[in-house]
Structure formats: structure tokens, C-alpha cells
């Protein structure tokens, strides 16, 4: 009784382990894969990786929490990454944050109750000339203001 998620992760590990000298080395790429499959590094994801690499669950958890960019808690379907560094802040990203909070009850580091968005504050993305700027998933948006931010976000359901 193996579900698809487990199978994807198992196949990935079977494939990847040939590229490394030791099976421990497949843990990091497998964590990326599991993030894609489960949406975050869930306890089930860690168990799957542990089952097929033989590395202990605790150790995998240690690895996953060491790196800041693994999603160590459940994430929404879309990830908003908003810059609040100096220039963006001056250009009004703070007020955008409070708007997001008003409209979606979205706090930095949090997730909407319907699981649609997660919000993360990010460091400078080099768009100071067209600040404020944000990333939604892998898409880049700049010159944000109180109106267009919702037009953009409406595209992500």
C-alpha cells in the first residue's frame, strides 16, 4: 500500500544515490524533492526519506532545520516574498504589509486560513530602482502600490 508521494520520493532516491559516494549525500536533494511533493518538509516526508536512505529520522530533521530555506512548516499554495529593506520600506512596503494583513489576515511568516498564500519577508532583491518589489512563487513584480498588488495576487488562486 504505497501512495504516490512515497513512490516519487523512493524513485528519486534510487535515481540520485548513484551520483553520490555515500547514500547520506542524497538527503539534501531528497529534501528538495519531498518539499515539492508534500509542499513542505512534513514528518511523513522525513519518514519516507529515512526509510529509503537509512539515515535516521532525527538526523534528517536536524539537516532540514539547519537550512533556512527549507519549508519546515506547512506552506500555502503560493508564496509571497516581499522585500522590506530600506528602499522598499521608504517606498511603502510597510503599508503593503498591513494591507495584506487586512485583506487576508496574513502575517509575515504565516499562512492564510484557506491555504492560498504564505507570506515571507525577504532581503533586498536588487529592485531598488522600481521599489517596492516582491516575488510570488518564482514570478517577479515591481512598482507595487496599494491597487496593483491585489490585481497581481488575484491571478494566483
Amino acid at each position, binding site marked *: *500500500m504505497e501512495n504516490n508521494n512515497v513512490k516519487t520520493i523512493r524513485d528519486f532516491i534510487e535515481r540520485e544515490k548513484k551520483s553520490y559516494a555515500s547514500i547520506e549525500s542524497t538527503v539534501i536533494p531528497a529534501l528538495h524533492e519531498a518539499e515539492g511533493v508534500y509542499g513542505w518538509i512534513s*514528518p511523513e516526508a*522525513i519518514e519516507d526519506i529515512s526509510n529509503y536512505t*537509512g539515515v*535516521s*529520522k*532525527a*538526523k534528517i*530533521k*536536524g539537516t532540514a*532545520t*539547519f*537550512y*533556512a530555506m527549507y519549508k519546515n512548516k506547512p506552506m500555502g499554495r503560493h508564496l509571497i516574498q516581499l522585500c522590506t529593506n530600506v528602499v522598499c520600506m521608504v517606498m511603502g512596503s510597510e503599508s503593503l504589509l498591513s494591507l495584506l494583513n487586512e485583506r487576508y489576515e496574513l502575517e509575515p511568516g504565516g499562512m492564510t486560513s484557506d491555504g492560498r498564500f504564505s507570506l515571507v519577508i525577504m532581503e533586498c532583491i536588487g529592485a531598488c530602482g522600481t521599489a517596492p518589489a516582491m516575488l510570488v512563487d518564482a514570478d517577479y513584480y515591481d512598482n507595487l502600490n496599494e491597487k496593483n498588488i491585489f490585481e497581481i495576487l488575484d491571478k494566483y488562486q
Partner: protein
Amino acid sequence: MIKVNIDGQEITLEKPMTILAAAQRAGIKIPTLCYDKQLEPFGGCRLCLVEIERVPKLMASCTVNVTDGMVVRTQTEKVKKARKAQLEFLLINHPLDCPVCDKAGECDLQDLVAQYGAHEGRFLEGKRKHPESFRDPIIVRNMERCITCTRCVRMCDGVQGAFAITVTGRGNHSFVEPFTGGEYKCEYCGNCLTVCPVGAIMSKLHRHSYRPWYVEKEIKTICGFCAVGCTLIAQTRGKDIIRTMPKHGLGINDGILCVRGRFGYDYRSGEGRITTPLIRKDSGELEPASWETAIDYAARRLADIKERHGVASIGGIGSGRCTNEDNYMLQKLIRYVIGSNNMDSSARFAFAPAQKYLERMFGQGVTANLIPGIANADGVIVFGGDPTAINPILGVQCRIARRKGAKVIVIGAPAGLKGFVDYKLEPVVGCEEVVLRAIVKGVVDKKGLSGENAYIENKIKKLMSPDDETIERVGVAVADIAKAVDNILKMKSPVVVIGPEAVHTSSASLNLFLLGVINYVLNGRIFLLSEKANYQGLLDMGCAPDVVPGGRPIELDIIEHKFQDLLGSKTPEEHGMNLYEMIDAAKNGKLKALYVMGDNPLFNYPDREHIEDAFNKIDFLIVQDISLNDTVKMADVVFPANSWLEKDGTFINLGRSLQRLRKALSMDGCWDDWKIVAEVAKKLGMKKSYESSKDVWEEIRKVSPLYRDVDYVGLDEQALTWPYMGEPIRGLEGDFKVEGLEQVLGNVAKGSDGFMGLTNPVLMLERPLFHSGSMSGMSKALLSIYGAPYFKISKTLALRYGFKEGDKVRVIMEKGEIDASAQIDVNMQDGVVYLSNIFEGVGYMGVVGYKVDAVVGSLVITNNNIVDIVRVED
């Protein structure tokens, strides 16, 4: 030769070692926090920093090896300043809650800060907050105090091999956590809390109940929970035991303990402990009595039964929980005072017959091996039980061996050794012998025979191997068998670990023979797992119908004069009954009186109905125990006995090492077992009196030349291994029998059908890590981990019978029914259901039958096919 100069002192070293080790050897003290002798060096705390000439930076002395001509300074201003700074960094987040921290007084950090300063921190920021975690039954984590020295993680991964905890997060935010984040759900060995230098991981049992300087006495004694015989230090205050600790460099366990040894000590004050003698009155009730009355009564009734029915109507059952002195005294009472050879114990079920069989193959003393030596073996072969659960520290040794490069081969479910084996050799339960046959045949064919022992080799030649189809049918890949054979052939000093399940089957003699063959061909070492602490000792003390103390046969006439002089009578000539025969005799009304010491036959022996029937027919039952168990409830006289933490004496472990037990504290109202028996014996005419267990031991030394040169003083210094500087008497006896050797096992349909789910599953005995029989069931701490009986069952089987995890189910057997909750285990086979034998009323043994193996004489469980499993409503 390496010459180093440390703090102006010239040191000459034979071998390379770290600067820290070299300094310690020269008596120079370097402070450390993350360093621990038992663990891999880590170099994380930076407190052992030293200055090395011509090296610009300070170096961590625990990780840098000395080189010839190196000049090291450990106490310069620069070094001191660095250490102080390091401590200041640690105190940024470490709370100064020493007044409410149990560690205060034995805290490494506290001591170092006191020594090196950083009394004033310059950091104004608030400390990190991390709520204390009480979500675990016995371990409290306070991660505000954690200084991430990772000692606990290195202990868990590198020594214990449980891989339960890890450092999560990074930098300032990192702390130690089990996988679940809350409960540990691990092996609960508690070794992480011994090595924690601060109060981050602590035991819940003695939380806020004492300060380290409250300890009044520290007593070095031997753990009585299993037959490894770990040395532990019991810390006491008044009449209370505060905790038990291992110590690095001490005993077989060398600084580690298992869950029972570390947390199980509160069994002694557990529910049901009896502290006064009881006599069954005419009304049929057990009523308290004085020692004098009870002993008098017991002796009078025994004398009466002896006169009316003869000596053959009286028997005794010794105990693997009791010391050598206790068991010696009981057999002395039965054999030399009353005059009957009806003397046995529950060692008869597996340990005694297995050992006897192996000794007939290889000669006496074949199981006398050192447990710590397992770690140095280059191969471990396990059959018939999970060493990490039955004898946990032995299991840890197997894991360490694997880490050092040994191959571990487990035939059967790997259980606690999962992750330490390379391939699965897990046949259908009941068909392990097929795999063992195939492996042994493969090994013998490739390795050849040496011609050393014709008895063994003649039999090997007759050995038939199962064909590939049969092997596949029992669920093992033929390729894996070939790999196992190759690996075994490479082993030069293998260890063969034999669990009790090897002889609880009808192929007992074949299993033992085949395991013996591996041992014979490869010159290995045999370890017989044993649940009870002193099975070996009670056999050596003569608690068997056919041997007298020292392990000599009763027929040996030449020593009878000595016995006459020393003990006042000769060994009775009439053959005695073993345990099975005694039970049958009781049922037939031939056994009139039974003296049970430290055992609970009603609960621990199979086939409750049969045993109850037999015990009901016994005229006079004396039971000597620590708790009010099922057998005690049937007794005519009950004597409350001291338990292992409360007595002096000696234990012999499964590797036949003789070790000294010391009394940690006393229990009001209870007597030592030997003393109770001796008092009864005195009333029956024994002349000798004994002041202490030492007097008993002195007599044992005179009786058997094996212990001639072993006294308590010598044993205080070190444990001794068989033959204890003495003289063993028996050698090889001659030929032995093996059942079913020539049979080709083409027909294993029974087991494989179970596997396919076509027939009903079988009920098997679970031997859990967290308990060893019913004694540990008195410990509140162990009960908080494993507190209620359950059926361990596979997912497929649960689906088939239609219930979920946690549902209450009733398992219907031919010999009764049993209710417990269901626990689903994904790693389990489909053909078996496991049930423990710990909780009264819900024991495995009560609902199965037994027969005796014709060749080995071990207990073979029968009637264990499950008739049906139904869900019951609460």
C-alpha cells in the same frame, strides 16, 4: 617515540594521541565541556583551547594530535582569556536558574564559570526563551540550558545507536530535540542525561527532589534486571534511593545503562510489595504473622509431609532473580536437609537446556565469554531473539561492533538491530531453521572441516540443505543467503548470539546444532541470551535435579565424603524431578509440598489452567517473593523477601562472570532469601548458622573447588569469569543427538501459508525492552513508558480482522481468550501477533500450551494458533 612539552613538562609517548589525552596522562588538567571519554571528539565548546608554539591561533586540544617536538602551553593569559570569553558566550543564553536546577552542584558549566570567571556578562540582550518540555513520561528537556555540546547526540548515535535525537536549527537557535519534538519515543536508555554537562536533559523521576550534595551513600552494585550484569551506582539518602548511575570505566556496561537499569529502580516501592509474612488460616484467608510463627509453621508442615509422604513428595523452585547464596541455600534445604533432588527453576525452559546441549557439543564453559569483547568481534550472528531488547547492553555491543566494521547477520526479524544489518534474512516466523540450514550448509561447503571433533563432523556430513524454491517460499532471497555465507566466511572472530526463541521450537536441537556448527567452523564465541539476571548462577549453585553446587553431576561419588562432613549429609541418590515433572507430579497428587523462591509459576509458566490445576493439588505451598502475585495468592505460607537492590551476594551473568552485589538500602519487614530458607532449614535440623551472605559464600567455596580462591574481597576489586581460577571437573561427554538433521525441508507449507494470509496467525511472546518479566511491572517509571498490554499486529492483519490502531480486541485461543488494545506495527510480518507477559491477567503464557522438546528438554510452546480476533466495545 613522540616527545612533547606541555607546560614545561617533557612527556614521552609511545603512540600518537590528542594533546588533551597526553596532558591528562601527565596529570595536567585542561577544562572541557563537550569532551567525553566515551564519545568521538567534537571540538565544539572551545574550552580546551591551548597555545601551541609556532601555531598562530589557539587550538582545541581534544581534536589535535601531538607531534614530535610540539611545545604546548595550557595556562597562559591568552588561553585563560579565551576560555573566559567562551564561557561568557555560553552564558548569553544559558539561564542562571541554578537555584532551581537539579544539576547545580554537579554541573560542568557551573564549575567552570566558578573557576574561570565571566562573572559579569556584557550582553544586555534578553536570553532566548524555550519552554521546558514535559511531554515525555520520564525525560524533561530544558533547552534554555542547552549549550549544544552535542554530547547527548553523539552518545545516542555513536554509542547507544538509537539515533533518536538531533540538533535542530542553527546557530543561536539550535537546540536538541527528538524527532517528534515532544515525546522521545526512543529506547529510553537515558544515556543522554548522564552525559549532559548542564541541566538540559534531566530525569523526571527525581526532579526537584534532591540536590547532588544530599546523596548520603553511593553503593556500587549489579543490576538485577537482566543477565548482562551491568555495574551501577545506587545513590541513596536515608531509606530512599535517589537514582542509579553508570560510570565510565566501571563494569561490563562501561558508562552506559539501559532503560530498566536507569529508570526501573522504583520497582522496589511499587504496588503490591509485601513486607510481612503471611499464613493461610483455616478461614482460607492469608493473614499476617510474625516471622517466628511463619517459619515454625513452614518447618512443621514440611517435616510432617516428609514423614507421611516421603522426601520425593517435596520439591523446590529456585529463582533467576535471586543471588547465588539464595539459590545455594534453597537447594541445600531441599537436597541436604530434606533429602530430595526435586530442585529446578524456570531456567529449565530455555537457558539451562540450551547451555547443557552446547556444553555437550563443546565441553563445559563454552558460554563463558566476555560481553565487552563483542564490540571487537568482526562478525555478529544473531538467532532466536532480539539482543537489544532481552539483554540491551549486549545489543549495544553488537551495534558498536557493526560501527567498528563487523558484519551483523540477523536471522529473523532484526528488531533493534534494524539499520545495522545489510540485508534482510527474515523468513516466515517458525521457518528460521530453513534459512539457518542453508547458511550453515553454504559455510561448511566452502570452508571445509578441520577434523577436530568427529562427533560434530559426522553430523555435518549428513546435513541436507533446502532447495532454492523452499528458501524463496519462506520469504528470503537466495541471493541474500549467498551474501550472508560470503560475509560469514570472512569473519575471523565471530560472535554467535542465541536467543531463547531458538529453543522454544520443535527444531530446538537442530537450531542449536547448526549455530554450534558456525561456532565450530569459525572458532567463534557463543552468548546465550537470558532474561533473568542469575540463571547461570542458579544452575551453578545446583538448582537443577542433576547437578550439585559447582556444576558437578549428582552421581559423582568421590565428593560425597566431603559433603557428608561439610553439609551433614550425602547427596540423595534417588533422581529428582525437573520442573515439568514436578508440575505433572503435583497434578497427579505425588508432589505434596513445593517451596517456590522468587518465581511466579502461575503467571510465568505456560498453560495457566494446567499449572493452576497442579498448584491446587499441592498440600503445602511456600512462596517467597517481593510482591503479591498470582502464586503468592495461592500459597499457604508467604515470606516477604528482599529484592536485588536490598541484598548482598553474587550474580553470575550470561557470560559466566561472577560479580558482587551490594546492599544499597533495606526494606522494612523483608529478609534476604537465603536467610529465610536457612531459618526454615534450622528448624528442620540444619546445624550450621550463618551471619551474613558472606558466610554462605564461604561454604560454597568449600563445597566447590570452582570457587576455592574467590572471596568477597577479591570480587570487590573485579569480576571473575569462569572457571574463576578454580578447577572445572567435567569435560566432553561424548555424542549428542540432533533431531531432523537428515530431513530435507521441502515441505514448509505451514509457515508459508501463514505468510500468505491463508491460515490463522500465531501468537508469539513479545520480549519488550522496557520490561523484564513482572518485576519491572512494579516500576512506575517503566510503566509510564509501557503501561498497558497490547497486541502488536501488522497492518494487513488488522485490515483482515477489521480493526484500527488503538481498538480493543479480543484474541481467542484454544486455551482461553485475552483482551487488550491493538497496536499496528508496519515493520511486522503478517503471520504473527505479539503479546507480552508482564501484566497480570493479560499474560501471553496463560493462553498457550506447552510440550517438552524430546532431545534438548526445552519448552516448546503449543496451541498458539489464533482461533479468531474480534473487536470488543469498551
